[in-house]
Protein backbone atom coordinates (compact mmCIF):
# COMPACT_ATOMS: atom_id res chain seq x y z
CA UNK A 1 0.00 0.00 0.00
CA UNK A 2 1.29 3.52 0.63
CA UNK A 3 3.26 1.74 3.32
CA UNK A 4 4.72 -1.43 1.86
CA UNK A 5 7.22 -3.76 3.53
CA UNK A 6 7.26 -1.77 6.75
CA UNK A 7 9.70 -3.54 9.03
CA UNK A 8 8.06 -4.24 12.36
CA UNK A 9 10.05 -4.31 15.57
CA UNK A 10 10.01 -7.49 17.65
CA UNK A 11 7.16 -9.84 18.21
CA UNK A 12 6.57 -11.10 21.71
CA UNK A 13 4.20 -13.66 23.03
CA UNK A 14 2.10 -12.67 26.05
CA UNK A 15 4.34 -14.75 28.32
CA UNK A 16 7.41 -12.81 27.19
CA UNK A 17 5.84 -9.38 27.77
CA UNK A 18 6.65 -7.21 30.78
CA UNK A 19 3.60 -6.17 32.83
CA UNK A 20 3.78 -2.72 31.20
CA UNK A 21 3.84 -4.21 27.70
CA UNK A 22 1.00 -6.53 28.56
CA UNK A 23 -1.13 -3.65 29.89
CA UNK A 24 -0.38 -1.72 26.68
CA UNK A 25 -1.42 -4.67 24.50
CA UNK A 26 -4.63 -5.05 26.48
CA UNK A 27 -5.51 -1.40 25.89
CA UNK A 28 -5.10 -1.95 22.17
CA UNK A 29 -7.15 -5.14 22.32
CA UNK A 30 -9.96 -3.19 24.01
CA UNK A 31 -9.89 -0.73 21.11
CA UNK A 32 -8.48 2.18 23.09
CA UNK A 33 -6.50 4.88 21.30
CA UNK A 34 -2.87 5.49 22.26
CA UNK A 35 -2.04 9.17 22.56
CA UNK A 36 1.38 10.86 22.10
CA UNK A 37 2.22 11.48 25.77
CA UNK A 38 1.35 7.97 26.88
CA UNK A 39 3.79 5.14 27.39
CA UNK A 40 4.36 2.88 24.40
CA UNK A 41 6.87 0.16 23.59
CA UNK A 42 9.87 1.44 21.66
CA UNK A 43 9.09 -1.01 18.86
CA UNK A 44 5.57 0.35 18.49
CA UNK A 45 6.91 3.90 18.23
CA UNK A 46 9.61 2.97 15.73
CA UNK A 47 7.30 0.92 13.55
CA UNK A 48 4.74 3.73 13.49
CA UNK A 49 7.37 6.29 12.52
CA UNK A 50 8.43 4.08 9.63
CA UNK A 51 4.89 3.47 8.47
CA UNK A 52 3.60 7.03 8.84
CA UNK A 53 6.79 8.44 7.37
CA UNK A 54 6.50 6.16 4.38
CA UNK A 55 2.87 7.06 4.00
CA UNK A 56 3.69 10.81 4.15
CA UNK A 57 6.50 10.42 1.62
CA UNK A 58 4.11 8.57 -0.69
CA UNK A 59 1.68 11.48 -0.58
CA UNK A 60 4.28 14.05 -1.64
CA UNK A 61 6.12 11.88 -4.16
CA UNK A 62 2.64 10.95 -5.37
CA UNK A 63 2.13 14.58 -6.41
CA UNK A 64 4.68 14.14 -9.17
CA UNK A 65 3.11 11.64 -11.61
CA UNK A 66 -0.14 13.61 -11.63
CA UNK A 67 1.57 16.99 -11.43
CA UNK A 68 3.14 15.88 -14.71
CA UNK A 69 -0.18 16.55 -16.51
CA UNK A 70 -1.46 19.72 -14.82
CA UNK A 71 0.00 22.01 -17.46
CA UNK A 72 -1.41 19.76 -20.21
CA UNK A 73 -4.91 19.15 -18.83
CA UNK A 74 -7.34 19.26 -21.75
CA UNK A 75 -9.93 21.69 -20.35
CA UNK A 76 -9.98 24.44 -17.73
CA UNK A 77 -12.35 22.36 -15.62
CA UNK A 78 -10.08 19.29 -15.71
CA UNK A 79 -7.09 21.47 -14.91
CA UNK A 80 -8.83 22.90 -11.86
CA UNK A 81 -9.94 19.46 -10.64
CA UNK A 82 -6.48 17.97 -11.08
CA UNK A 83 -4.84 20.91 -9.32
CA UNK A 84 -7.24 20.53 -6.41
CA UNK A 85 -6.53 16.82 -6.24
CA UNK A 86 -2.76 17.14 -6.27
CA UNK A 87 -2.99 19.93 -3.72
CA UNK A 88 -4.97 17.58 -1.47
CA UNK A 89 -2.14 15.04 -1.68
CA UNK A 90 0.33 17.66 -0.46
CA UNK A 91 -2.09 18.38 2.38
CA UNK A 92 -2.20 14.65 3.22
CA UNK A 93 1.59 14.69 3.40
CA UNK A 94 1.39 17.62 5.80
CA UNK A 95 -1.16 15.91 8.12
CA UNK A 96 0.93 12.75 8.18
CA UNK A 97 4.25 14.46 8.84
CA UNK A 98 2.57 16.38 11.66
CA UNK A 99 1.11 13.17 13.06
CA UNK A 100 4.54 11.50 12.85
CA UNK A 101 6.10 14.45 14.67
CA UNK A 102 4.02 13.56 17.74
CA UNK A 103 6.25 10.48 18.00
CA UNK A 104 9.38 12.57 18.45
CA UNK A 105 10.75 12.78 14.92
CA UNK A 106 10.90 16.02 12.93
CA UNK A 107 9.70 16.54 9.37
CA UNK A 108 13.25 17.51 8.37
CA UNK A 109 14.61 14.24 9.77
CA UNK A 110 12.03 12.27 7.81
CA UNK A 111 12.80 14.24 4.64
CA UNK A 112 16.49 13.55 5.09
CA UNK A 113 15.74 9.82 5.32
CA UNK A 114 13.67 9.97 2.15
CA UNK A 115 16.40 11.80 0.28
CA UNK A 116 19.16 9.48 1.47
CA UNK A 117 17.12 6.43 0.45
CA UNK A 118 16.74 5.20 4.02
CA UNK A 119 12.99 5.53 3.85
CA UNK A 120 10.81 4.42 0.95
CA UNK A 121 7.59 5.57 -0.64
CA UNK A 122 5.02 3.49 -2.47
CA UNK A 123 6.30 1.60 -5.51
CA UNK A 124 3.36 2.83 -7.59
CA UNK A 125 4.74 6.35 -7.97
CA UNK A 126 7.78 5.06 -9.82
CA UNK A 127 5.66 4.37 -12.90
CA UNK A 128 5.33 7.03 -15.60
CA UNK A 129 2.13 8.85 -16.56
CA UNK A 130 2.23 8.79 -20.34
CA UNK A 131 -1.20 9.96 -21.47
CA UNK A 132 -4.14 11.90 -20.12
CA UNK A 133 -5.92 8.59 -19.52
CA UNK A 134 -3.29 7.90 -16.87
CA UNK A 135 -4.86 10.70 -14.81
CA UNK A 136 -8.03 8.64 -14.94
CA UNK A 137 -6.30 5.36 -14.16
CA UNK A 138 -4.33 6.82 -11.27
CA UNK A 139 -7.41 8.31 -9.62
CA UNK A 140 -9.48 5.21 -10.21
CA UNK A 141 -6.92 2.53 -9.35
CA UNK A 142 -4.25 4.16 -7.20
CA UNK A 143 -6.53 6.29 -5.06
CA UNK A 144 -8.95 3.34 -5.12
CA UNK A 145 -6.28 1.05 -3.67
CA UNK A 146 -5.31 3.73 -1.15
CA UNK A 147 -8.90 3.94 0.05
CA UNK A 148 -9.02 0.15 0.53
CA UNK A 149 -6.14 0.43 2.93
CA UNK A 150 -6.93 3.74 4.58
CA UNK A 151 -10.57 3.15 5.46
CA UNK A 152 -9.66 0.41 7.96
CA UNK A 153 -6.71 2.51 9.19
CA UNK A 154 -9.19 5.06 10.50
CA UNK A 155 -9.53 2.55 13.37
CA UNK A 156 -5.78 2.20 13.92
CA UNK A 157 -4.58 2.26 17.54
CA UNK A 158 -2.49 5.43 17.40
CA UNK A 159 -4.76 8.45 17.94
CA UNK A 160 -3.03 11.06 15.72
CA UNK A 161 -2.65 8.55 12.87
CA UNK A 162 -6.28 7.52 13.14
CA UNK A 163 -7.45 11.13 13.07
CA UNK A 164 -5.20 11.94 10.08
CA UNK A 165 -6.73 8.96 8.26
CA UNK A 166 -10.27 10.16 8.96
CA UNK A 167 -9.50 13.55 7.39
CA UNK A 168 -7.68 11.98 4.46
CA UNK A 169 -10.38 9.43 3.66
CA UNK A 170 -12.95 12.20 3.21
CA UNK A 171 -10.87 13.54 0.33
CA UNK A 172 -9.81 10.26 -1.18
CA UNK A 173 -13.25 9.34 -2.41
CA UNK A 174 -13.37 12.59 -4.42
CA UNK A 175 -10.00 11.57 -5.88
CA UNK A 176 -11.24 8.21 -6.97
CA UNK A 177 -14.45 9.65 -8.43
CA UNK A 178 -12.63 12.25 -10.51
CA UNK A 179 -10.35 9.51 -11.85
CA UNK A 180 -13.23 7.23 -12.75
CA UNK A 181 -15.03 10.17 -14.33
CA UNK A 182 -12.03 10.80 -16.62
CA UNK A 183 -12.10 7.11 -17.58
CA UNK A 184 -15.85 7.27 -18.35
CA UNK A 185 -15.33 10.28 -20.59
CA UNK A 186 -12.44 8.59 -22.41
CA UNK A 187 -14.31 5.32 -22.84
CA UNK A 188 -17.34 7.12 -24.25
CA UNK A 189 -15.12 9.20 -26.51
CA UNK A 190 -13.30 8.62 -29.79
CA UNK A 191 -11.60 5.27 -30.61
CA UNK A 192 -8.25 6.91 -29.83
CA UNK A 193 -9.49 8.00 -26.42
CA UNK A 194 -10.85 4.55 -25.64
CA UNK A 195 -7.54 3.00 -26.71
CA UNK A 196 -5.71 5.38 -24.38
CA UNK A 197 -7.98 4.31 -21.52
CA UNK A 198 -7.34 0.60 -22.21
CA UNK A 199 -3.61 1.22 -22.45
CA UNK A 200 -3.65 3.05 -19.10
CA UNK A 201 -5.45 0.13 -17.45
CA UNK A 202 -2.97 -2.30 -19.01
CA UNK A 203 -0.03 -0.41 -17.60
CA UNK A 204 -1.46 0.36 -14.14
CA UNK A 205 -3.27 -2.87 -13.27
CA UNK A 206 -0.37 -4.90 -11.92
CA UNK A 207 1.47 -1.96 -10.33
CA UNK A 208 -1.83 -1.19 -8.53
CA UNK A 209 -2.02 -4.78 -7.25
CA UNK A 210 1.54 -4.42 -5.99
CA UNK A 211 0.50 -1.49 -3.83
CA UNK A 212 -0.81 -3.92 -1.22
CA UNK A 213 2.64 -5.43 -0.72
CA UNK A 214 3.88 -9.01 -1.12
CA UNK A 215 1.72 -12.04 -0.66
CA UNK A 216 0.90 -12.92 2.96
CA UNK A 217 3.10 -15.98 2.85
CA UNK A 218 6.09 -13.69 2.15
CA UNK A 219 5.03 -10.82 4.37
CA UNK A 220 7.28 -11.21 7.37
CA UNK A 221 6.34 -8.18 9.44
CA UNK A 222 2.57 -8.41 9.45
CA UNK A 223 1.85 -10.27 12.68
CA UNK A 224 3.25 -7.75 15.16
CA UNK A 225 1.83 -4.77 13.25
CA UNK A 226 -1.58 -6.40 13.24
CA UNK A 227 -1.41 -7.14 16.97
CA UNK A 228 -0.65 -3.46 17.52
CA UNK A 229 -3.45 -2.44 15.15
CA UNK A 230 -1.03 -0.48 13.00
CA UNK A 231 -1.97 -2.77 10.17
CA UNK A 232 -5.62 -3.75 10.06
CA UNK A 233 -5.82 -6.34 7.28
CA UNK A 234 -3.41 -8.65 5.54
CA UNK A 235 -2.01 -7.73 2.13
CA UNK A 236 -3.89 -10.50 0.38
CA UNK A 237 -7.22 -9.65 2.01
CA UNK A 238 -7.00 -6.09 0.76
CA UNK A 239 -5.78 -7.10 -2.69
CA UNK A 240 -8.73 -9.51 -3.06
CA UNK A 241 -11.16 -6.79 -1.99
CA UNK A 242 -9.63 -4.39 -4.47
CA UNK A 243 -9.90 -6.83 -7.36
CA UNK A 244 -13.49 -7.70 -6.47
CA UNK A 245 -14.43 -4.03 -6.42
CA UNK A 246 -12.50 -3.00 -9.51
CA UNK A 247 -13.32 -5.73 -12.03
CA UNK A 248 -17.02 -4.77 -12.33
CA UNK A 249 -15.99 -1.12 -12.69
CA UNK A 250 -13.71 -2.05 -15.58
CA UNK A 251 -16.56 -3.99 -17.17
CA UNK A 252 -18.86 -1.01 -16.84
CA UNK A 253 -16.26 1.06 -18.69
CA UNK A 254 -16.05 -1.58 -21.41
CA UNK A 255 -12.38 -2.17 -20.64
CA UNK A 256 -10.55 -5.48 -20.35
CA UNK A 257 -8.51 -6.26 -17.25
CA UNK A 258 -5.16 -7.51 -18.59
CA UNK A 259 -5.33 -10.92 -16.93
CA UNK A 260 -6.28 -14.11 -18.82
CA UNK A 261 -6.66 -15.98 -15.54
CA UNK A 262 -9.25 -13.63 -14.15
CA UNK A 263 -12.34 -15.68 -13.34
CA UNK A 264 -15.16 -15.49 -10.82
CA UNK A 265 -14.81 -18.12 -8.12
CA UNK A 266 -18.29 -18.90 -6.82
CA UNK A 267 -16.98 -20.87 -3.89
CA UNK A 268 -14.89 -18.08 -2.38
CA UNK A 269 -17.27 -15.40 -3.60
CA UNK A 270 -14.45 -13.47 -5.26
CA UNK A 271 -12.28 -13.42 -8.33
CA UNK A 272 -9.30 -15.64 -8.96
CA UNK A 273 -6.59 -13.54 -10.54
CA UNK A 274 -2.92 -13.58 -11.49
CA UNK A 275 -0.30 -12.39 -9.07
CA UNK A 276 1.82 -9.47 -10.21
CA UNK A 277 5.42 -10.15 -11.13
CA UNK A 278 7.01 -9.90 -7.69
CA UNK A 279 10.51 -9.69 -9.08
CA UNK A 280 9.46 -6.43 -10.73
CA UNK A 281 8.03 -5.21 -7.42
CA UNK A 282 11.27 -5.87 -5.54
CA UNK A 283 13.26 -4.26 -8.34
CA UNK A 284 11.12 -1.10 -8.13
CA UNK A 285 11.43 -1.01 -4.34
CA UNK A 286 15.19 -1.40 -4.68
CA UNK A 287 15.30 1.73 -6.86
CA UNK A 288 15.12 0.22 -10.32
CA UNK A 289 11.63 1.19 -11.43
CA UNK A 290 11.10 3.25 -14.57
CA UNK A 291 10.95 6.59 -12.72
CA UNK A 292 12.74 6.10 -9.38
CA UNK A 293 15.62 8.38 -10.34
CA UNK A 294 13.28 11.12 -11.62
CA UNK A 295 10.92 11.00 -8.65
CA UNK A 296 13.55 11.03 -5.94
CA UNK A 297 15.66 13.43 -7.98
CA UNK A 298 12.75 15.88 -8.21
CA UNK A 299 12.20 15.76 -4.44
CA UNK A 300 15.90 16.27 -3.69
CA UNK A 301 16.11 19.14 -6.17
CA UNK A 302 13.05 20.83 -4.65
CA UNK A 303 14.59 20.49 -1.20
CA UNK A 304 18.07 21.70 -2.19
CA UNK A 305 16.78 24.57 -4.33
CA UNK A 306 14.53 25.61 -1.46
CA UNK A 307 17.30 25.78 1.15
CA UNK A 308 17.94 29.53 0.70
CA UNK A 309 14.20 30.16 0.99
CA UNK A 310 13.83 28.24 4.23
CA UNK A 311 17.02 29.80 5.63
CA UNK A 312 15.77 33.26 4.66
CA UNK A 313 12.49 32.79 6.51
CA UNK A 314 14.32 31.46 9.55
CA UNK A 315 16.73 34.39 9.57
CA UNK A 316 13.87 36.85 9.28
CA UNK A 317 12.01 35.22 12.15
CA UNK A 318 15.13 35.50 14.33
CA UNK A 319 15.62 39.15 13.40
CA UNK A 320 11.97 39.92 14.12
CA UNK A 321 12.18 38.17 17.49
CA UNK A 322 15.31 40.05 18.55
CA UNK A 323 13.73 43.34 17.43
CA UNK A 324 10.73 42.56 19.61
CA UNK A 325 12.94 41.84 22.58
CA UNK A 326 14.94 45.05 22.00
CA UNK A 327 11.71 47.04 21.90
CA UNK A 328 10.48 45.66 25.20
Amino acid sequence: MYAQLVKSEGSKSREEMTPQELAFQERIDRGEKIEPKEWMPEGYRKTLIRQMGQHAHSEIVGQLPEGNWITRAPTLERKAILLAKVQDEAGHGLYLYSAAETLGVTRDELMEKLHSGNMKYSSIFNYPTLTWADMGAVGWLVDGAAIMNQVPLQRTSYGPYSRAMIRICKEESFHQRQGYDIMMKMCAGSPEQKAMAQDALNRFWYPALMMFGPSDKDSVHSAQSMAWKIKMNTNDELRQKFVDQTVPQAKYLGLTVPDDNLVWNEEKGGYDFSEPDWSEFFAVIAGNGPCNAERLGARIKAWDDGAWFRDGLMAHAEKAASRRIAAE
Partner: protein
Amino acid sequence: MSGALEAVDRAVFAEWLQRIGDNVLILGHRVSEWCGHGPALEEDIALSNQALDLIGQCQLWLGLAAEVEGKGRTADALAFLRDAGAFRNLLLVERPNGDFGQTLMRQFLFDAFHIELLRALKASSDPRVAEIAAKAEKEVAYHLERSADLVVRLGDGTTESHARMQKALDLLFPYTGEMFADDATDRAMAEAGIAVLPSSLKAGWDRTIADVLAEATLTHPGEVWQHGVKGTGGKTGVHSEYLGFILAEMQFLQRAYPGASW
Protein backbone atom coordinates in the same frame (compact mmCIF):
# COMPACT_ATOMS: atom_id res chain seq x y z
CA MET B 1 -29.27 43.41 -23.49
CA SER B 2 -27.59 45.62 -20.91
CA GLY B 3 -26.86 49.28 -21.47
CA ALA B 4 -23.20 48.61 -21.03
CA LEU B 5 -23.19 46.24 -23.97
CA GLU B 6 -24.52 48.93 -26.21
CA ALA B 7 -22.11 51.48 -24.82
CA VAL B 8 -19.13 49.79 -26.36
CA ASP B 9 -18.40 47.65 -29.38
CA ARG B 10 -18.72 43.94 -28.62
CA ALA B 11 -15.36 43.15 -30.16
CA VAL B 12 -13.66 45.78 -28.01
CA PHE B 13 -15.39 44.51 -24.87
CA ALA B 14 -14.43 40.90 -25.66
CA GLU B 15 -10.86 41.95 -26.38
CA TRP B 16 -10.63 43.70 -23.03
CA LEU B 17 -12.08 40.68 -21.19
CA GLN B 18 -9.50 38.45 -22.84
CA ARG B 19 -6.75 40.67 -21.46
CA ILE B 20 -7.85 39.95 -17.90
CA GLY B 21 -8.74 36.32 -18.57
CA ASP B 22 -5.44 35.64 -20.32
CA ASN B 23 -3.44 37.23 -17.50
CA VAL B 24 -4.86 34.84 -14.96
CA LEU B 25 -4.71 31.86 -17.30
CA ILE B 26 -1.04 32.29 -18.14
CA LEU B 27 -0.02 33.23 -14.61
CA GLY B 28 -2.04 30.27 -13.30
CA HIS B 29 -0.19 28.03 -15.75
CA ARG B 30 3.19 29.32 -14.61
CA VAL B 31 2.34 28.96 -10.93
CA SER B 32 0.99 25.45 -11.47
CA GLU B 33 4.40 24.41 -12.83
CA TRP B 34 5.58 24.47 -9.19
CA CYS B 35 3.13 21.81 -8.06
CA GLY B 36 5.17 19.13 -6.30
CA HIS B 37 8.41 21.12 -6.54
CA GLY B 38 7.96 23.88 -3.95
CA PRO B 39 10.66 24.82 -1.43
CA ALA B 40 8.47 23.69 1.50
CA LEU B 41 5.27 21.72 1.73
CA GLU B 42 3.30 24.76 2.93
CA GLU B 43 4.47 26.76 -0.11
CA ASP B 44 3.60 23.93 -2.43
CA ILE B 45 0.06 23.90 -1.09
CA ALA B 46 -0.25 27.69 -1.19
CA LEU B 47 1.02 27.86 -4.78
CA SER B 48 -1.34 25.15 -5.99
CA ASN B 49 -4.16 26.93 -4.27
CA GLN B 50 -3.23 30.19 -5.93
CA ALA B 51 -3.05 28.52 -9.34
CA LEU B 52 -6.46 27.05 -8.65
CA ASP B 53 -7.89 30.49 -7.84
CA LEU B 54 -6.41 31.94 -11.01
CA ILE B 55 -7.74 29.17 -13.24
CA GLY B 56 -11.15 29.59 -11.63
CA GLN B 57 -11.08 33.33 -12.35
CA CYS B 58 -9.97 32.60 -15.90
CA GLN B 59 -13.04 30.43 -16.43
CA LEU B 60 -15.24 33.36 -15.42
CA TRP B 61 -13.46 36.05 -17.44
CA LEU B 62 -13.02 33.99 -20.59
CA GLY B 63 -16.55 32.64 -20.22
CA LEU B 64 -17.83 36.20 -20.24
CA ALA B 65 -15.49 37.11 -23.12
CA ALA B 66 -16.97 34.28 -25.19
CA GLU B 67 -20.50 35.35 -24.30
CA VAL B 68 -19.87 39.00 -25.17
CA GLU B 69 -18.15 38.04 -28.39
CA GLY B 70 -21.27 36.11 -29.36
CA LYS B 71 -19.65 33.79 -31.89
CA GLY B 72 -20.49 30.55 -30.15
CA ARG B 73 -17.04 30.03 -28.67
CA THR B 74 -16.48 28.87 -25.09
CA ALA B 75 -13.89 29.69 -22.43
CA ASP B 76 -12.15 26.42 -23.33
CA ALA B 77 -12.09 27.32 -27.02
CA LEU B 78 -10.47 30.64 -26.17
CA ALA B 79 -7.91 29.03 -23.87
CA PHE B 80 -7.02 26.04 -25.99
CA LEU B 81 -7.62 27.03 -29.61
CA ARG B 82 -6.18 30.50 -30.02
CA ASP B 83 -2.63 30.94 -31.27
CA ALA B 84 -0.11 33.09 -29.42
CA GLY B 85 -0.82 36.23 -31.44
CA ALA B 86 -4.44 36.17 -30.26
CA PHE B 87 -3.48 36.06 -26.57
CA ARG B 88 -3.74 39.36 -24.73
CA ASN B 89 -1.89 38.75 -21.47
CA LEU B 90 0.86 41.00 -20.11
CA LEU B 91 4.46 40.06 -20.80
CA LEU B 92 5.07 39.91 -17.04
CA VAL B 93 2.91 36.83 -16.46
CA GLU B 94 4.61 34.76 -19.14
CA ARG B 95 8.10 35.32 -17.67
CA PRO B 96 9.64 31.99 -16.66
CA ASN B 97 9.40 30.89 -13.03
CA GLY B 98 13.14 31.21 -12.42
CA ASP B 99 14.02 30.50 -8.81
CA PHE B 100 11.32 30.72 -6.16
CA GLY B 101 12.30 34.34 -5.51
CA GLN B 102 11.51 35.30 -9.10
CA THR B 103 8.21 33.47 -9.01
CA LEU B 104 7.35 35.27 -5.80
CA MET B 105 8.41 38.70 -7.04
CA ARG B 106 6.42 38.26 -10.27
CA GLN B 107 3.43 37.33 -8.15
CA PHE B 108 3.84 40.31 -5.85
CA LEU B 109 4.22 42.83 -8.69
CA PHE B 110 1.14 41.39 -10.39
CA ASP B 111 -0.97 40.95 -7.23
CA ALA B 112 -0.43 44.60 -6.30
CA PHE B 113 -1.79 45.61 -9.73
CA HIS B 114 -4.49 42.94 -9.80
CA ILE B 115 -6.03 44.07 -6.53
CA GLU B 116 -6.23 47.70 -7.69
CA LEU B 117 -7.86 46.58 -10.91
CA LEU B 118 -10.45 44.36 -9.23
CA ARG B 119 -11.35 46.98 -6.64
CA ALA B 120 -11.99 49.46 -9.43
CA LEU B 121 -14.00 46.93 -11.45
CA LYS B 122 -16.39 46.30 -8.56
CA ALA B 123 -17.94 49.64 -9.60
CA SER B 124 -18.24 48.58 -13.25
CA SER B 125 -21.38 49.63 -15.11
CA ASP B 126 -21.65 46.04 -16.31
CA PRO B 127 -23.00 43.92 -13.44
CA ARG B 128 -21.35 40.76 -14.76
CA VAL B 129 -17.93 42.40 -14.61
CA ALA B 130 -18.65 43.81 -11.17
CA GLU B 131 -19.72 40.39 -9.91
CA ILE B 132 -16.63 38.54 -11.13
CA ALA B 133 -14.39 41.31 -9.79
CA ALA B 134 -15.99 41.10 -6.36
CA LYS B 135 -15.50 37.36 -6.20
CA ALA B 136 -11.91 37.50 -7.45
CA GLU B 137 -11.01 40.39 -5.16
CA LYS B 138 -11.39 38.24 -2.05
CA GLU B 139 -8.96 35.65 -3.42
CA VAL B 140 -6.49 38.21 -4.73
CA ALA B 141 -6.45 40.15 -1.45
CA TYR B 142 -5.14 36.97 0.10
CA HIS B 143 -2.61 36.42 -2.72
CA LEU B 144 -1.23 39.92 -2.16
CA GLU B 145 -1.10 39.54 1.59
CA ARG B 146 0.90 36.38 1.16
CA SER B 147 3.26 37.53 -1.60
CA ALA B 148 3.96 40.88 0.11
CA ASP B 149 4.67 39.12 3.39
CA LEU B 150 7.13 36.71 1.78
CA VAL B 151 8.86 39.50 -0.16
CA VAL B 152 9.42 41.31 3.13
CA ARG B 153 10.65 38.24 4.95
CA LEU B 154 13.04 37.13 2.22
CA GLY B 155 14.23 40.65 1.41
CA ASP B 156 15.04 41.09 5.07
CA GLY B 157 16.29 37.53 5.61
CA THR B 158 19.79 36.26 4.86
CA THR B 159 22.35 37.93 2.61
CA GLU B 160 21.55 35.33 -0.02
CA SER B 161 17.77 35.67 0.15
CA HIS B 162 18.14 39.46 0.00
CA ALA B 163 20.38 39.23 -3.07
CA ARG B 164 18.01 36.85 -4.82
CA MET B 165 14.99 39.06 -4.16
CA GLN B 166 16.81 42.17 -5.36
CA LYS B 167 17.87 40.35 -8.52
CA ALA B 168 14.31 39.16 -9.10
CA LEU B 169 13.02 42.70 -8.68
CA ASP B 170 15.58 44.16 -11.09
CA LEU B 171 14.82 41.43 -13.60
CA LEU B 172 11.04 41.84 -13.53
CA PHE B 173 10.53 45.53 -12.93
CA PRO B 174 10.93 46.41 -16.64
CA TYR B 175 7.76 44.39 -17.28
CA THR B 176 5.54 46.37 -14.92
CA GLY B 177 5.01 49.47 -17.06
CA GLU B 178 2.80 47.57 -19.49
CA MET B 179 0.19 47.12 -16.75
CA PHE B 180 -0.51 50.86 -16.71
CA ALA B 181 -0.18 51.81 -20.38
CA ASP B 182 -3.56 52.97 -21.75
CA ASP B 183 -4.54 52.26 -25.33
CA ALA B 184 -7.63 52.70 -27.52
CA THR B 185 -9.33 49.61 -26.06
CA ASP B 186 -8.76 50.84 -22.52
CA ARG B 187 -10.11 54.27 -23.39
CA ALA B 188 -13.26 52.88 -25.01
CA MET B 189 -13.90 50.67 -21.97
CA ALA B 190 -13.33 53.51 -19.54
CA GLU B 191 -15.65 55.80 -21.50
CA ALA B 192 -18.36 53.15 -21.34
CA GLY B 193 -17.92 53.00 -17.57
CA ILE B 194 -17.24 49.28 -17.68
CA ALA B 195 -13.59 49.69 -16.73
CA VAL B 196 -11.14 52.37 -15.61
CA LEU B 197 -8.01 53.55 -17.34
CA PRO B 198 -5.05 51.36 -16.36
CA SER B 199 -2.99 54.52 -15.76
CA SER B 200 -5.42 55.44 -12.97
CA LEU B 201 -4.31 52.34 -11.02
CA LYS B 202 -0.68 53.33 -10.97
CA ALA B 203 -0.68 55.56 -7.88
CA GLY B 204 -2.13 52.85 -5.64
CA TRP B 205 0.29 50.28 -7.03
CA ASP B 206 3.24 52.63 -6.52
CA ARG B 207 2.32 53.05 -2.87
CA THR B 208 2.07 49.32 -2.22
CA ILE B 209 5.35 48.65 -4.01
CA ALA B 210 7.20 51.44 -2.19
CA ASP B 211 5.92 50.35 1.23
CA VAL B 212 6.68 46.68 0.78
CA LEU B 213 10.09 47.20 -0.80
CA ALA B 214 11.08 49.55 2.02
CA GLU B 215 10.08 47.03 4.64
CA ALA B 216 11.88 44.33 2.69
CA THR B 217 15.05 46.49 2.61
CA LEU B 218 15.06 46.19 -1.20
CA THR B 219 16.10 49.00 -3.54
CA HIS B 220 13.40 50.34 -5.85
CA PRO B 221 14.73 50.14 -9.42
CA GLY B 222 13.39 53.65 -10.16
CA GLU B 223 12.85 54.85 -13.72
CA VAL B 224 14.01 52.02 -15.97
CA TRP B 225 13.26 50.99 -19.52
CA GLN B 226 9.81 49.40 -19.76
CA HIS B 227 8.88 46.68 -22.25
CA GLY B 228 5.65 46.63 -24.20
CA VAL B 229 4.41 50.12 -23.37
CA LYS B 230 4.33 51.54 -26.89
CA GLY B 231 1.47 49.50 -28.25
CA THR B 232 3.62 46.50 -29.04
CA GLY B 233 3.34 44.28 -26.00
CA GLY B 234 1.33 41.36 -24.72
CA LYS B 235 -1.88 43.40 -24.59
CA THR B 236 -1.83 43.72 -28.36
CA GLY B 237 -0.61 40.18 -29.01
CA VAL B 238 3.11 40.79 -29.41
CA HIS B 239 4.57 38.33 -26.95
CA SER B 240 7.91 36.95 -25.83
CA GLU B 241 9.24 33.63 -27.13
CA TYR B 242 7.99 31.95 -23.97
CA LEU B 243 4.28 32.11 -24.74
CA GLY B 244 4.56 29.79 -27.74
CA PHE B 245 6.02 27.08 -25.55
CA ILE B 246 3.43 27.61 -22.83
CA LEU B 247 0.68 27.15 -25.40
CA ALA B 248 2.37 24.17 -27.09
CA GLU B 249 2.18 22.42 -23.73
CA MET B 250 -1.19 23.73 -22.58
CA GLN B 251 -3.02 23.16 -25.87
CA PHE B 252 -1.43 19.83 -26.79
CA LEU B 253 -4.43 17.55 -26.25
CA GLN B 254 -6.97 19.88 -27.84
CA ARG B 255 -4.71 20.26 -30.86
CA ALA B 256 -3.78 16.59 -31.20
CA TYR B 257 -7.38 15.35 -30.88
CA PRO B 258 -9.57 18.04 -32.43
CA GLY B 259 -13.16 17.96 -31.29
CA ALA B 260 -12.68 15.27 -28.64
CA SER B 261 -14.50 15.80 -25.38
CA TRP B 262 -12.65 15.25 -22.12
